[in-house]
């Protein structure tokens, strides 16, 4: 399996990245080499191995689920303070146009 430039463009689209032509070429090579290296994992038979779903180790108390209660949160002006284009109580964005 080799990575094509179309694959790179497709993945960039999924990731909301706009790549230049040069970046597409470079990533095709670099990501191709890395993905090829990752094929090494296929040397292992993992048919009967559970995917690891938690990292805490055996015997650790599971983190509890918190009660679903309202807790103090930032007031609107603080939540908006870092916004590139804040409006009155809102984040302003460019108009949404349907994808072709």
């Amino acid at each position: 399996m080799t990575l094509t430039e179309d694959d790179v463009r497709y993945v960039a689209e999924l990731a909301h990245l706009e790549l230049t032509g040069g970046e597409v070429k470079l990533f095709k090579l670099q990501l191709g080499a890395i993905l090829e290296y990752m094929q090494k994992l296929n040397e292992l038979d993992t048919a009967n191995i559970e995917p690891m779903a938690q990292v805490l180790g055996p015997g650790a108390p599971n983190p509890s689920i918190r009660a679903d209660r309202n807790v103090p949160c930032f007031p609107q002006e603080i939540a908006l303070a870092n916004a590139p284009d804040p409006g009155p109580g809102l984040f302003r964005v460019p108009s949404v146009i349907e994808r072709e």
Partner: protein
Amino acid sequence: MRPTQVQGCSGCPASSNGNNILKESSADRRICGLRLFAHPTDKPRSHKGLGGADMASFGHVCDFRGSQTLQSARFLRHPLTRIVRPIPRHYTMDLTELNISQIRNALAAKQVSAEEICQEHLKRIGERDSEVRAYLTVTAERALAQARKVDRLVTEGRPLPALAGVPVAIKDAIVTRGVRTTCASKILENYVSPYDATAVERLESAGGVILGKTNCDEFAMGSSTENSAFFPTRNPVEPSRVPGGSSGGSAAAVAAHLATIALGSDTGGSIRQPAAYCGVAGMMGSYGRVSRYGLVAFASSLDHIGPFARSVADLACVLGVIAGRDPLDSTSVDVPVRDYGAALDGDVRGLKVGIPREYFEGLSSETGANIQKAVDLLARLGCEVHSISLPHTAFAIGCYYIIATAEASSNLARYDGVRYGFRSEDHKNGLREMYKKTRDAGFGAEVKRRIMLGTYVLSSGYYDAYYRKAQQVRSLIARDFLEAFDEVDVIVTPTSPFPAFKLGERVDDPLQMYLADIYTVNASLAGIPGISVPCGRTATKPCLPVGMQILARHFDEARLLQVAHAFEKAGGFAIA
């Protein structure tokens, strides 16, 4: 130990050279914030004593310090002491060399103020950081305010908290209220956090004095700090070399005495590897040991916050402060926090130390030689050395870079130019274009590469082949460790296959850069704690630091620290 000759103002370079400060390097310019407190043109302080409102003018040392030594300055600054005292020995001590307990003792004995310690560090940052470039932001104002708070505790005779007056550097991937947190990325260049990370809040509550925010690889993605969007940090031991990464700025700051301790983050070795490269100690607790609330997320199943220090006792002290359950991080767990300081002096005789065979393949011979000497030293201390196998080691890099990039692609989806951070103005065609242009202009090459990789391995048709497969291999790697810890108490390995490499040496080959993480990603995948301590330097010039990694069972940080401390006490840090 160098005697301190305090020339000119402590902390404000303007008075020592009489030049326009704006002509100085950017590092000096950042220090200019200090002028608020210590400008030579301000009125002289009134000598009413230490603390209270009077402390506000405590910084005007440059008015009368001139070229006097600290000894006489001390006398001048304690006008209540009317008699000439013999000069105590500690005044010849460089305040940037003190460790946590020395700072504490000196404060309690009123031999020095927290503000002086803070000023001395800020001064050193002004002098030295134009070369090292460890800091992205120096928070002189916040530091001095906090130091004065500590000094008030001293004056009022109140008990001193664990880190009273200790100068701290914080990796810029950890948020600090009211201070720019950039994650070394253009996309967060002007981001000012509305809250403090839990670890930061705990450090400050314990009296820590935050000097500033340190450089790192953008979004903690890298092993050299060359991926910073702003500038690379240099290794203080040898400036042509990288400090390691991603927490390279924090490691360099501690190594260059630009802070006593520092916080970094470790996802696949980002504390342990730079600690090794810069010749300091660095530690990652077990997954869940330290709250990540306020750590900018990279790979959530792997991210840790942890400390850097120049001694194991200091690491233990900082870990004790930042560890423990935090309701704001649902992955932090309620496992009791040990008294790590008390655990240091335990007997290591009879302790079983495992040496994994797989970690010595492909190792540079110089690093191997130092590790061998380190293992010999542990044996002389009475540890039983056992050769062990961690059979899935060779699969760790592939496994790690699938899982870490998958999680990164998902975590970094939040940077879209809507709620915070940079937004591209080039978006005639609407919202979607705005996202893409923003992310294209805001992210650096390595971040884009990892987002691409992560998106690919999670994409339809590839998920099972990559992501699910990697999670299965992760189970095998974790099982290797569980089985090994049935046989041994700790595992000792090199931290990195080679010492600090040259700037630019690996930037063009991402896979080679990834492979440098071969000895650190395993423990991250398994969730076990790890520490890197210095074990001498390479025999040939430029004699670079070598790091030894110690790994232990989940939540057995005390054991790690105990072995590391015994090794340090036996002279292991300077092994030759």
